[in-house]
C-alpha cells in the first residue's frame, strides 16, 4: 500500500463537481450499485408479504407467486433491506462525502477494495443460503437463538461486519491525517456526522460480533451444544438499536448538509447540529433494552432506566426537526412564501432530489411519534410484537431513510454512469407513490396491530384473526400494490439510466462543504476520547446490571441450564 503516494491519486477538479474521476466512479459506484442490487431483491418481497397477510387476497389468489414460503420472504426482506442495502450504501456514500469534504483521497485505497470484496462475498453467501435452504435459513433478520440457521447465514453477516470495520478504519485514518494538518479547524459537518456514525457502529457491532462468533456460528457448526437465548437477545439488541441510528445518521448528512442547498435555503444552526450528533453518539447505544420490555430475564428497573434514556435520545431528533425545518422555511421564503406556514408547500417539489427527502420527512413525523409511544414502556405492552412495530419502522427506516438514500441515488447515479437520469418525472412519481403507500401501510399495519394482529405471521390463514383485524390486513395489501408500483418506477429509472439514457449527465454541483461555516462551537467537540469515555460510563450504568442478570452470576453462570441449540423446526 505504501507504494502509491497519496499525492499521485487522481482527485476531481473541484470538490463540488458532479463529474466523478474514474477512481470515484468505480469505488463509490460499486458500493451504491451493489446496495441497490440488494434492495432490489428485498424490496419486491415486501408487497408480496402484504398480500400474503391479507385474508381476502389469499381467498382469491391462494398461491402467492413470488417466494411462496412467507417466512423465507420475511427473512430475505429484512436481511437484504436492513443489513446489506444499508451497509453498502452508507459506506459508499460516506467514502464520497469524506473524500470530497476533506479534499483528500481515502487512506489505504486498496483496503477499501478488500473491504468491498469481503462484503460482496458476504452478500453472495447470504443469497445462496437463503435460496438453497429456504426452510432452515428462515430465522428472520433478528436470528434469535436457540433457532439456529445453517452456518453460511452467519458467515455472510460476519463478512459484512468485517468489511464495515475495515471501511470505518479507512475513514478514521483519513480524518486523522486531515486533522493533523488542520488542528485549529472544525471538520465539515458532514464528516463530523460520518465520524459519529462509524464510532457508534463500531461500538455497537461488538455485541452482535460476540453473539455470532461465540454463540451462533459455533452452535451452527455443531461445536457448541448449548446457547442462552436471553443472553443472545440482549447481545443482539445491544447492536440492534444503534443499528437504526447507523441507518438514520447518513440520511441526516443529506438533510443537514445537502438539502438546505438543494432546496434553496440555508442551515439554521451548525453548532447546535454538532450538539445533536454528540447526543446521538452518547445515547443511541445504552437503550437497546427498550426492544426487550417484554423479556422475562431482565429486571423492570433496568428496563425503566433504558426507557428514560430512550426519551433522551429523541431530543436530538427533535433538534433536527427544528434545525432542518428552519432551513426549509428559509428555502420556502426564498421561493416567495410570505405567510405563517405556506413555506411548507412552497418547495421544489418537481425536483426528485428534494421531493424524495421532503416526503421521507413527512413519514418521519409519524415514525418519530410512534417511536416515542413504543419507548413508553407501559404503552409498549399493548403493541409489542404486533404489526404496529413494522408500521413504525417503515415510517422511519422504510421511508425517511430509504427515500433519502433514493434521493442521493437520483443525483449520484447520473454522475456514476455519466448519463442523465432516465426520467425526472418518473422519479417524482416514485417519491409520491412511496409516500402514499407508506402512509397507508403505516395506518393499516398500525391499526391491525392495535387490534392484536401479530407481526411476522401468515395472518391470512391464522385462526385467531378477527373481523376488525381483517379489514386492516386487507388494507395493508392495498398499500402493497401502491408500493409495488413505486418500486417498479424506481428500478425502471435505475435500469433506464444505466442502459437507455442517451443524454450526457448534467453539469452540476454536489452540495459539499469543504470548510465549516461554524466558528463558535468548541474545538473539544472533536476530542473523541472524551465521548468514548462518557459512552463507556453510560454503557456500564445502563448495561452493567442487564448483563449481570442475563449471565446470572448467582447461579454460577448457570451453564447446566442452557438450552440445546435446535434447528428451525420443519413443518
Amino acid at each position, binding site marked *: 500500500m505504501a507504494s502509491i503516494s497519496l499525492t499521485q491519486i487522481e482527485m476531481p477538479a473541484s470538490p463540488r463537481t458532479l463529474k466523478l474521476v474514474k477512481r470515484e466512479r468505480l469505488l463509490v459506484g460499486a458500493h451504491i450499485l451493489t446496495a441497490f442490487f440488494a434492495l432490489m431483491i428485498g424490496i419486491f418481497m415486501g408487497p408480496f408479504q402484504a398480500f400474503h397477510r391479507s385474508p381476502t387476497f389469499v381467498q382469491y389468489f391462494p398461491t402467492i407467486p413470488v417466494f411462496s414460503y412467507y417466512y423465507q420472504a420475511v427473512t430475505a426482506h429484512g436481511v437484504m433491506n436492513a443489513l446489506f442495502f444499508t451497509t453498502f450504501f452508507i459506506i459508499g456514500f460516506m467514502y464520497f462525502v469524506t473524500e470530497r469534504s476533506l479534499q483528500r483521497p481515502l487512506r489505504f485505497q486498496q483496503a477499501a477494495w478488500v473491504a468491498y470484496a469481503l462484503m460482496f462475498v458476504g452478500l453472495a453467501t447470504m443469497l445462496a443460503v437463503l435460496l438453497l435452504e429456504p426452510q432452515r435459513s428462515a430465522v428472520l433478520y433478528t436470528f434469535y437463538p436457540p433457532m439456529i440457521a445453517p452456518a453460511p447465514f452467519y458467515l455472510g453477516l460476519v463478512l459484512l461486519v468485517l468489511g464495515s470495520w475495515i471501511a470505518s478504519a479507512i475513514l478514521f485514518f483519513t480524518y486523522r491525517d486531515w486533522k493533523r494538518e488542520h488542528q485549529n479547524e472544525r471538520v465539515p459537518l458532514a464528516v463530523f456526522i460520518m465520524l459519529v456514525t462509524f464510532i457508534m457502529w463500531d461500538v455497537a457491532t461488538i455485541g452482535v460480533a460476540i453473539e455470532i462468533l461465540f454463540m451462533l456460528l459455533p452452535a451452527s457448526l455443531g461445536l457448541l451444544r448449548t446457547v442462552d437465548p*436471553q443472553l443472545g*437477545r440482549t447481545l443482539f439488541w445491544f447492536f440492534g438499536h444503534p443499528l437504526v441510528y447507523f441507518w438514520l445518521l447518513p440520511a441526516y448528512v443529506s438533510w443537514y448538509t445537502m438539502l438546505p442547498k438543494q432546496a434553496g435555503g440555508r442551515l439554521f444552526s451548525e453548532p447546535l447540529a454538532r450538539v445533536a450528533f454528540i447526543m446521538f453518539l452518547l445515547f443511541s447505544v445504552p437503550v437497546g433494552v427498550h426492544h426487550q420490555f417484554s423479556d422475562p430475564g431482565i429486571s423492570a428497573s433496568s428496563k*425503566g432506566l433504558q*426507557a*428514560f434514556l430512550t426519551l433522551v435520545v429523541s431530543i436530538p431528533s427533535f433538534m433536527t426537526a427544528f434545525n432542518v425545518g428552519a432551513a426549509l422555511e428559509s428555502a420556502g421564503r426564498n421561493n416567495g412564501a410570505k405567510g405563517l406556514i405556506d413555506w411548507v408547500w412552497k418547495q421544489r417539489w418537481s425536483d426528485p432530489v428534494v421531493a424524495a427527502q421532503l416526503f421521507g420527512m413527512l413519514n418521519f413525523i409519524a415514525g418519530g411519534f410512534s417511536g416515542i409511544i413504543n419507548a413508553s414502556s*407501559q404503552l409498549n*405492552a399493548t403493541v409489542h410484537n404486533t404489526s404496529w412495530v413494522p408500521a413504525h419502522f417503515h415510517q422511519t427506516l422504510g421511508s425517511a431513510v430509504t427515500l433519502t438514500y433514493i434521493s442521493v441515488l437520483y443525483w449520484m447515479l447520473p454522475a456514476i454512469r455519466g448519463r442523465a437520469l432516465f426520467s425526472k418525472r418518473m422519479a417524482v412519481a416514485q417519491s409520491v407513490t412511496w409516500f402514499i403507500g407508506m402512509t397507508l401501510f403505516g395506518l393499516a399495519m398500525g391499526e391491525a396491530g392495535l387490534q392484536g394482529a401479530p407481526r411476522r405471521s401468515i395472518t391470512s390463514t391464522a*385462526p385467531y384473526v378477527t373481523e376488525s383485524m381483517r379489514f386492516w390486513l386487507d388494507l395493508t395489501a392495498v398499500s402493497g400494490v401502491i408500493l409495488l408500483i413505486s418500486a417498479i418506477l424506481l428500478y425502471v429509472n435505475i435500469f433506464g439510466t444505466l442502459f437507455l439514457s442517451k443524454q450526457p449527465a448534467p453539469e452540476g454541483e454536489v452540495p459539499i462543504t469543504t470548510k465549516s461555516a461554524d466558528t463558535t462551537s468548541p474545538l473539544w467537540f472533536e476530542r473523541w476520547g472524551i465521548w468514548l469515555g462518557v459512552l463507556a460510563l453510560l454503557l456500564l450504568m445502563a448495561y452493567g446490571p442487564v448483563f449481570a442478570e442475563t449471565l446470572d452470576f448467582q447461579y454460577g453462570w*448457570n451453564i447446566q*441450564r442452557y438450552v440445546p441449540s435446535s434447528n428451525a423446526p420443519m413443518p
Partner: protein
Amino acid sequence: MEINRIERYWLLAVTTVLGAFAAATIVALAFFGIRLPSPVDRIDPRNLEQTEFARPGIRQLSGNRYEAYIVAKSWAFEAGPGLGNPPTLRFPVGSEVTFYVTSVDVMHGFQIEDHTANLELVPGQIARTTVRFNRPGKYSIICNHYCGAGHHVMYATIQVE
C-alpha cells in the same frame, strides 16, 4: 456558543413533552399497576419434571384468584388435559389470573387479545404476568413471536363467563 432564542423555547417545549411521557410511565406504574415483566426464575427446559410445569393447568388459589401454568412448544400452548386442542381456559368474570409461562424449544410469544398481557417466552426463563378479566367474552392467546413454519396457527382461547 450561542443558542437562538426560538430554539431555546423549542428545546424547553420538547423537554416538557418528554417529561410528560416519562411522568405518564411512572403514573402507569404507580397508580394503574402496569408493570413490566421482571425475572421470576430460571428453569431447565429439558427437565420440567420437578417443576410446576410438569402438570400445566389452572389452579384456584382463593375466591377469584387463579394461577395458570402454561408450556409453550412448537406450535401449541399446553394448559393441561381436558381443555381441548387448541385449549380453552375458562374463568369467571372478575377473575384475577397470574400466568406462568415457559417455552421448551424456541422463542415464543404470549399475548392476550384486548388485555395488557404481552410476554416474550425465552427458553430457560419463566415469564409471569397478572391479568384481571372483567368483561365476559372469548379472547385469543396469540403466539406473537416467530417460532417456525407453524407460527401462525399457534394459539389458545380464554373464555370469560
